[in-house]
């Protein structure tokens, strides 16, 4: 029997697409100043930005988990009027240009903002142009990724397991923590990874809402952008580092969580 060949009309664009995705990464590796790399990596500014990026992305992801998983549960398990609308609203930050998101955050959490003014006068909390502001900006942009992944996992999970748990005496909260959450753990992990990766790369909302202060709000993507204007080599080194960190963490989590799903 003759093996069916894949049609060229599909093969050619597929390979071109692959090339298009890989080529920039190759270019980055090609232009990397490998000889001066060790000394450049240990420059204090770089490590500060890296540490800030990892910290804010991780805290933002944790915040998204705490708020996003219950929201995903609500969307997947409870039918309430306007659920479709809520689901649509949740995905808005996904399609919103991040800069617009940053402006919107300023209007709400800024010193003269709807909630910001009250936060400032009551608790003395100021979010814009602080590290906390970076976290808020990243969480705002990244949370839809988590919610969509977790809601999908919840919809895919058999709700009758929850009924079985109820017949064994488990209330809704216990059922959620002991049955539902473990069942969708791979989906939650996948969503958290996506969310974290998105937060790590966040640029537009962060620079708009939190500014670009080294050591305080200057995350890796901001540092890359700034370096590009003054020192191309530094920009390349920073980019390479960001690429490396993302790939390593994604790969390790993938082995541990996602593939076991």
């Amino acid at each position: 029997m003759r093996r069916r060949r894949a049609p060229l009309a599909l093969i050619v664009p597929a390979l071109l697409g692959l090339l298009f995705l890989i080529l920039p990464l190759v270019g980055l590796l090609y232009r990397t100043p490998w000889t001066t790399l060790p000394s450049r990596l240990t420059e204090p500014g770089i490590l500060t930005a890296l540490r800030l990026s990892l910290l804010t992305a991780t805290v933002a992801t944790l915040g998204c988990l705490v708020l996003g998983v219950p929201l995903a549960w609500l969307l997947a398990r409870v039918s309430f009027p306007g659920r479709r609308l809520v689901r649509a609203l949740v995905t808005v930050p996904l399609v919103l240009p991040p800069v617009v998101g940053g402006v919107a955050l300023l209007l709400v959490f800024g010193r003269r903002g709807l909630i910001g003014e009250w936060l400032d006068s009551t608790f003395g909390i100021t979010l814009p142009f602080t590290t906390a502001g970076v976290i808020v900006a990243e969480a705002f942009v990244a949370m839809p990724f988590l919610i969509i992944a977790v809601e999908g996992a919840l919809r895919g999970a058999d709700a009758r397991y929850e009924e079985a748990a109820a017949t064994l005496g488990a209330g809704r909260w216990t059922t959620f923590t002991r049955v539902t959450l473990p069942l969708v753990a791979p989906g939650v992990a996948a969503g958290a990874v996506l969310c974290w990766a998105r937060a790590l790369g966040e640029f537009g909302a962060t620079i708009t809402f939190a500014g670009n202060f080294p050591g305080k709000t200057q995350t890796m993507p901001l540092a890359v952008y700034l370096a590009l204007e003054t020192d191309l080599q530094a920009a390349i080194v920073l980019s390479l580092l960001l690429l490396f960190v993302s790939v390593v963490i994604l790969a390790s989590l993938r082995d541990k969580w996602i593939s076991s799903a």
Partner: protein
Amino acid sequence: MTDLLDARLVVDRGTFRLDVHLRIAAGEVLALLGPNGAGKTTAMRALAGLEPLTAGHVRLGERELDRPDARVWTPTERRPIGVVFQDYLLFPHLSALDNVAFGPRRHGVDKRKARAEAADWLARVGLAEFAKRKPRQLSGGQAQRVALARALATHPELLLLDEPLAALDARTRLDTRVELQRHLAEHPGATLLVTHDPLDALVLADRLVVIEHGAVVQEGDAAAVTARPRTDYVARLVGLNLYRGHAADGGVRVADGLTLAVTDRVSGEAFVAFRPSAVAIFSERPEGSPRNVWQATVAGVQRHGDNLRVGLQGPIEAAADITPPAAAELGLTAGQRVWAAVKATETNAYPA
């Protein structure tokens, strides 16, 4: 004997209405039998509190669990009711042991004691060495036993079994049925077995309730139901030919031009039942003793155990079991005209 469970279950869903009254004594096993879509599973879910009642009540022991018109409602997790689901629904992320310990844990038993109890239950169902296995590493029969142990571990006053053997292959079903019978006999509470398999019902249950289209059509012990079916569904289940007609003068008029002679004394509306093996088939009109004779057309022939089951059409539809040699002699083919005969002494007639 006072009933442990007394439930009138009314569930109205527009196109479908369930209205059944179930009573089960402590230690008794009641089988709820019916065709697909009769409302068996709905009744079970209503008892467990997984489906809201439209009206009626659920009383278990001294406690009123559910009575919509008095706004009494007990959520599923607070009902002393254990459920074995048709596809078991063992939690895939927990070991067999932790699945069984799940119930006791939720009832406030501390972790170590719950696991000890669970190990005890697994030993009772003969799965002590499978405690650490995940559900996906268990066979169908083993999963069924874990599900039973998990439901029993909470010491439910009412145990619900939804088609407990339906997911098993024939061989496993045989062993598991015997096993299940033993555990049900030891269960001190009431048991409701939902099934569409008459054999499960006859072997496992003390009493049968047959429902069709959401309503009870017949109930009683196995002997009563099998001897005197009251609907076509029940007759088919127990393998009898069943007809309804008007009885007078030692005969029941079951169709235009056909009155079956019976030996039971009945009058008015009555049922007549007889076994397919009681029907004899002749190519010529038989002479002499059999009094109930009618002309029929062969609709089809199928293997049935060691014999052949012949479907007959005519004034009445009937099934006849004949031996392969007899069939060969008659040279039966579909569409063939034959004579069917049943002795009056082989019939069973009873009031409708």
